[in-house]
């Protein structure tokens, strides 16, 4: 049975494999899903894509809050006459099999009428009859087949904002007008002096005018607005010459047509707006299923169990928790508010809040802070502060989170735009002055012609296409950026600061070292047997590494929650747990997670758990160290200092015991002299990520929680970070080269304009030609650069 993989999820079956229906499964969970599928005629799931399933998690009790009608009411989109419609986010959607099975949910339960999956957003929309069915049963059904939906506080507050489709409409309008105007202006390109063509040119021209109206006043309105805003705040952004160009094109063409001076430039006008919008559209690559704006809300539960004075349990919404309430916190649940522990022993993992990976033990009467995760056992707590006033949630009150980095950053295009506008206006006035002196009838013609031909269409297109394409290339290598602006900022980085736990280290594997008197074979066997009975995560990982096959039957077993475990066989006892529990003085150097062992009340030694660094971290720093300053900001204690110093370049700054606010302040201080890239992972880095010039969140699974940031990097590609930084810089060079190229076109165009020979047909050729060649140039360049990533 060695090396077989699960028929359902494709994981290795290992020792605990299950056989069913002549197929191998890694666990009972996967087998159950297969049973559900096969008994409902859904086995095609395995034919569409092999081994694509997800192992279901235990959900018992987790969704009891969906019995509360008030909560259900807020979650569903439609609820009338026994029919409900709900949209659920399902992070585990990943292949075509998933789409297929989720769209055939009606085969699993007859109450479900329609289910439709949206793959890019990872959501499904389900319509069901509420008669003997409910949202809770739906969620449990999805959970039972491995598609547990993600319902958090964020879902409840539901940003049910309307999708902004205005850019698509504008693009449609511009494209429609562009095509028709091209067609209508075609006869005039040849200047055929035919009698009938001459007679009807009025109709053609006024039709073109009509088509250009929606383009100027609807499709191009963003450019006018942006230019107006820029001018008001005394900034000459790139939209100023564009808006000027569009306006002059429209006015000159209208005057030309009205006074029968020529056919006007409606073709160039509509084409220009169409190409510009196309660039905007291309730049707008978004990763619909990733959220870059997450805060604590997407991480908190939406309801908790409250105990009333009679001890009855009741599910209430998290916002309704009041000071003085008694609530229950179960194992693996998040503590939603600051509170005092009443009953139970708390073993709280604050790693999301502080970055400290070691769990903290608390006795009743002690204070617990919001954001911690209870590790084992049920707690009863009394609420001290409501959700919005708790320590963790107050961090989000910091102004850093409401700041928009992109709007404060002056892009390369905008800084060029300023010089460009000045240059164009100077040329226009000089040329006009010359013609006023020389042949005043030509002056106005030349002035407008310069403004038309110098309209920086190609310059405005260079950045969107270069950066948009780079964004896609990064995305293919699992580096997901929020917008193209982030690439420009990334190119200016000169210092990289890393978080330690979860960023440089991995949570997936631990190194366990034993320190102390060597254990005899019997003792090891007893230890392993004792550990076997415990469900604590540390016991489980310790159990897996101990080499002993002798499994005994325990005479006695006791588990003291939050302290340790004790097992007895044949008068021998074995205690495993915290230092004080086994009878050792708590050591002063609390630098690592450690489990102490004593046999017959004699302390033998301890097992030390260490996080392992990700593969290639040393090489990463070697590479970064040559070009950038490097630093570490860790919420952990300084136990790892020596090891870190070995990995890091010699002059690196390393700071330990940093609280979330400390990290934020530290970044702020460093920013006075550097452009800082922050790489972090948890909520504790959220402030630093928001404050830094570019904040990148590292994630082992991009679908699960990551804090608000500018980009999400898959942990497996962390070592490629130097290449990503280098490519960002190269992208900026590509943009600069494109500027040179488009300036050449402008010089040619300006020759025609200044000499007063600009014919509409020349403008109609020059403008699309420059745009298309810029797009081709940037695409080829970025794709060539992208090859470096392989």
């Amino acid at each position, binding site marked *: 049975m060695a090396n077989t993989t699960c028929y359902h999820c494709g994981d290795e079956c290992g020792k605990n494999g299950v056989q069913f229906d002549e197929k191998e499964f890694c666990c009972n969970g996967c087998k159950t899903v297969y049973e559900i599928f096969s008994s409902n005629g859904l086995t095609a799931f395995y034919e569409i894509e092999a081994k694509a399933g997800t192992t279901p998690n235990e959900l018992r009790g987790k969704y009891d809050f969906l019995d509360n009608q008030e909560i259900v009411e807020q979650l569903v989109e439609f609820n009338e006459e026994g029919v409900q419609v709900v949209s659920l986010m399902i992070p585990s959607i990943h292949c075509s099999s998933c789409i297929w099975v989720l769209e055939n949910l009606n085969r699993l339960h007859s109450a479900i009428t329609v289910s439709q999956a949206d793959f890019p957003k990872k959501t499904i929309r389900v319509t069901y009859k509420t008669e003997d069915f409910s949202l809770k049963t739906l969620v449990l059904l999805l959970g039972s087949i491995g598609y547990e939906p993600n319902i958090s506080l964020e879902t409840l507050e539901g940003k049910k904002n309307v999708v902004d489709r205005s850019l698509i409409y504008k693009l449609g309008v511009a494209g429609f007008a562009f*095509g028709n105007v091209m067609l209508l202006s075609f006869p005039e390109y040849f200047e055929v002096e035919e009698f009938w063509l001459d007679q009807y040119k009025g109709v053609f021209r006024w039709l073109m005018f009509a088509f250009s109206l929606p383009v100027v006043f609807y499709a191009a309105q963003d450019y006018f607005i942006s230019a107006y805003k820029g001018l008001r705040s005394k900034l000459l952004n790139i939209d100023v010459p564009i808006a000027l160009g569009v306006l002059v094109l429209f006015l000159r063409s209208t005057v030309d047509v009205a006074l029968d001076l020529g056919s006007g430039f409606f073709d160039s006008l509509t084409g220009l707006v169409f190409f510009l919008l196309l660039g905007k559209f291309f730049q707008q690559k978004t990763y619909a299923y990733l959220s870059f704006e997450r805060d604590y809300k997407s991480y908190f539960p939406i309801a908790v169990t409250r105990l009333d004075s009679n001890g009855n349990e009741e599910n209430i919404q998290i916002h309704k928790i009041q000071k003085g309430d008694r609530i229950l916190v179960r194992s693996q649940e998040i503590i939603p508010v600051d509170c005092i522990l009443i009953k139970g022993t708390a073993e709280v993992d604050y790693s999301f809040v502080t970055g400290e990976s070691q769990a903290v033990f608390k006795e009743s009467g002690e204070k617990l802070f919001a954001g911690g995760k209870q590790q084992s056992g049920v707690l009863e707590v009394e609420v001290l502060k409501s959700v919005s006033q708790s320590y963790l949630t107050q961090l989000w009150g910091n102004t850093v989170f409401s700041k928009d980095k992109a709007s404060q950053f002056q892009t390369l295009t905008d800084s060029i735009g300023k010089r460009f506008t000045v240059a164009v206006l100077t040329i226009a006035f000089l040329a006009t002055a010359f013609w006023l002196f020389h042949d005043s009838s030509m002056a106005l013609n030349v002035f407008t012609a310069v403004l038309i031909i110098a309209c920086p269409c190609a310059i405005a297109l260079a950045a969107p296409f270069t950066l948009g394409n780079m964004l896609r290339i990064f995305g293919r290598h699992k580096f997901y950026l929020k917008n193209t602006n982030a690439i420009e900022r990334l190119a200016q980085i000169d210092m990289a600061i890393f978080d330690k736990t979860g960023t440089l280290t991995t949570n997936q594997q631990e190194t366990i070292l034993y320190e102390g008197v060597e254990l005899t074979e019997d003792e090891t066997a007893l230890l392993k047997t004792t550990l076997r009975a415990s469900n604590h995560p540390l016991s489980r990982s310790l159990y897996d590494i101990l080499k002993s096959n002798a499994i005994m039957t325990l005479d006695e077993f006791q588990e003291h929650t939050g302290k340790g475990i004790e097992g007895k066989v044949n008068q021998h006892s074995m205690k495993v747990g915290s230092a004080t529990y086994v009878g050792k003085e708590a050591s002063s150097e609390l630098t690592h997670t450690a489990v102490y062992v004593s046999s017959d009340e004699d302390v033998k030694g301890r097992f030390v758990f260490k996080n392992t660094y990700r593969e290639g971290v040393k090489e990463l720093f070697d590479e970064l160290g040559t070009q950038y300053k490097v630093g570490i900001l860790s919420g952990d204690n300084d136990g790892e200092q020596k090891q870190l110093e070995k990995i890091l370049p010699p002059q690196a700054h390393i700071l330990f015991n940093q609280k979330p606010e400390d990290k934020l302040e530290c970044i702020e201080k460093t920013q006075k002299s550097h452009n800082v890239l922050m790489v972090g992972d948890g909520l504790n880095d959220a402030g630093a990520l928001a404050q830094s010039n570019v904040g990148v969140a590292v994630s082992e699974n991009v679908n699960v929680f990551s804090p608000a940031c500018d980009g999400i990097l898959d942990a497996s590609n962390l070592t490629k970070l130097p290449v990503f930084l280098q490519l960002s810089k190269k992208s900026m060079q590509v943009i600069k080269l494109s500027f040179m190229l488009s300036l050449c076109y402008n010089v040619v165009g300006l020759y025609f304009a200044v000499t007063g020979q600009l014919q509409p047909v020349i403008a109609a050729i020059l403008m699309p030609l420059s745009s298309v060649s810029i797009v081709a140039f940037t695409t080829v360049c970025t794709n060539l650069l992208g090859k470096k990533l392989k």
Partner: protein
Amino acid sequence: MSVIYVLLAISISVALCFFAAFVFSVKKGQYDDVYTPSVRMLFEDELLKDSDKHAHNKEKIKQTESTNQ
């Protein structure tokens, strides 16, 4: 010669029809998810084949029932 007016009117109204269709499709959200439909259209067969089998089985059962009678 005024046939040119008719031709123009026809060409523009055809164009407008397509434009209206485009606006309609955007409004209906057909461009919101451009990936899933491309996968979805390949599925219909599996489901049919599958339900055929079911229907087939049911028929068989019916047949055996009727022969028993």
